[in-house]
């Protein structure tokens, strides 16, 4: 049995049963899962985690799941000390949390694993989502493993490569001829009409909980401590807020000391509603029309924007945006210093990290985590200009003529 106790409104505090619900009936604010932390703390949680599987499910006591889980082996991804990149940026204690190494190559596997497990518990035979890539691939893969039908809505003009990465799992792939906003509106209507487990609508409170495992892992991999700084991308703001929640929970359960972590939101300048609100000193996030190459985090109206803004402010962190050129530079810098090929969202994180280090917001000795959420194979076209091979004939003479000087140096 799980320790999850109820769903609770994040604004007015009203409680609801653990059902497929996402909004408070009174104030229409989002609901989140609350737990019986006292009962959790009475068990030997640390020992249970240490003896658990090398995946996100080692933290299942802190997740809202009851029976068998849908497990592709997500999570427990490497936390790598980034000495080369650190030297480049002037940071001595820099680590990369490499979530590229999940089953479908993005952090979405963490959230989808929990959402699909709950969909099966709730008795849904069909799950659905709307996505431009990462979420769609993860939902299709987990649905295949769980034996559930999947409807995946995508904009009709996304790249062929991304479509293959979704279609291989054989979901019902629906290409919608319309704008980004049209797909949003359509899906908002469909959720009321069909009895589906819509991953980020009626299953959203459960889906969100999967993100916390990223924070648990960081703390455990650091030897049970919270980092000084976290730089993480924000799209809907869900991952960002749940990293914070995860650290706070560990502190509450006395698995780590008090959390003094500064949380930094990273966004692309072409889609930065949270950064705009932070810089304007505003309380609420106003929607924008996204226009950036960092498509996986191009969300104009972030569902958890308000809470991400709050986490950045209350933790003494900040919110910072970078241009598309800086995103590409960031992708190249990470690959060429640490051997990690990230997609554009990771380029955003490295670009923002570079700015924060240069401005002195993040200091040389701060134990800093840069969260890299998905692999570069997903957005190869963004850095296609790196392909400039030396073309030679298959002879030693030709090699030496073109590259002799370089090879002898």
């Amino acid at each position, binding site marked *: 049995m799980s320790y999850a106790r109820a769903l609770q409104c994040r*604004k007015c505090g009203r409680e609801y049963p653990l059902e497929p619900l*996402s*909004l408070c009936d*009174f*104030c*229409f*604010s*989002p609901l989140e899962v609350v737990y019986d932390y006292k009962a959790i703390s009475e068990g030997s949680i640390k020992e249970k985690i240490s003896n658990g599987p090398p995946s996100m499910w080692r933290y299942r006591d802190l997740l809202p799941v009851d029976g068998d889980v849908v497990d592709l082996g997500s999570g427990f991804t490497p936390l790598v000390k980034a000495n080369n990149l650190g030297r480049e940026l002037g940071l001595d204690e820099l680590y990369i949390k490499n979530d590229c190494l999940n089953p479908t190559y993005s952090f*979405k596997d963490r959230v989808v694993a929990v959402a699909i497990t709950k969909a099966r518990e709730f008795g849904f035979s069909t799950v659905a*989502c*709307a*996505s*431009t*890539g*990462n*979420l769609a691939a993860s939902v299709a893969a987990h649905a295949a493993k769980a034996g559930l039908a999947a409807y995946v*809505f995508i*904009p009709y003009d996304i790249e062929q490569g991304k479509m293959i990465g979704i279609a291989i799992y054989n979901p019902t792939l629906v290409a919608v001829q319309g704008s*980004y*906003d049209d*797909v*949003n*509106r359509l*899906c*908002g209507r469909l959720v009321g009409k069909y009895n589906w487990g*819509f991953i*980020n*609508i009626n299953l*959203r409170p459960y889906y969100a909980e999967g993100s916390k495992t990223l924070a648990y892992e960081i703390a455990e991999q650091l030897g049970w401590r919270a980092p000084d700084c976290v730089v993480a991308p924000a*799209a*809907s703001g869900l991952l960002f807020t749940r990293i914070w929640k995860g650290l706070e929970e560990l502190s509450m359960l006395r698995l780590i000391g008090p959390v003094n972590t500064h949380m930094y939101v990273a966004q692309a300048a072409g889609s930065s509603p949270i950064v705009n609100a932070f810089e304007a000193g505003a*309380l*609420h996030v*106003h*929607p924008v029309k996204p226009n950036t190459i960092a*498509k*996986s*985090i*191009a*969300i*104009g*109206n*972030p*569902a*958890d*924007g308000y809470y991400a803004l709050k986490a950045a402010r209350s933790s003494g962190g900040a919110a910072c945006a970078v241009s598309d050129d800086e995103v590409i530079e960031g992708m190249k810098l990470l690959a060429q210093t640490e051997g990690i090929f990230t997609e554009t*969202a990771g380029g955003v994180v490295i670009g923002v990290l570079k700015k924060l280090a240069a401005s002195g917001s993040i200091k040389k000795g701060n134990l800093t985590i840069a969260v890299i959420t998905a692999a570069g194979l997903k957005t190869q076209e963004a850095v296609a200009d790196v392909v400039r091979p030396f073309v030679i004939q298959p002879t030693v003479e030709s090699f030496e003529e073109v590259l002799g000087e370089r090879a002898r140096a």
Partner: protein
Amino acid sequence: MAKRRVMFTFPPDLIKEPIIYNLGHKFKVVTNIRRADVSESKGWVVLELEGEDKEIDKGVAWVAGKGVRVDPIVGDIMEG
């Protein structure tokens, strides 16, 4: 009768216009505000619309045509 939950975001030039009042008068739609934040420069309102599906569609299209941004209140459903 259908119910639809939406968020209206008003640009500065429309803050003073009684758009929600007119929505309820021009169309057979009952408006029920749950949360809002309106200042001189910008404003948003989270509300529930109740009426026939087609009437809500027409009303929402009229509001959007006035220059108000209309979003699902769960935020963007489409993700990366």
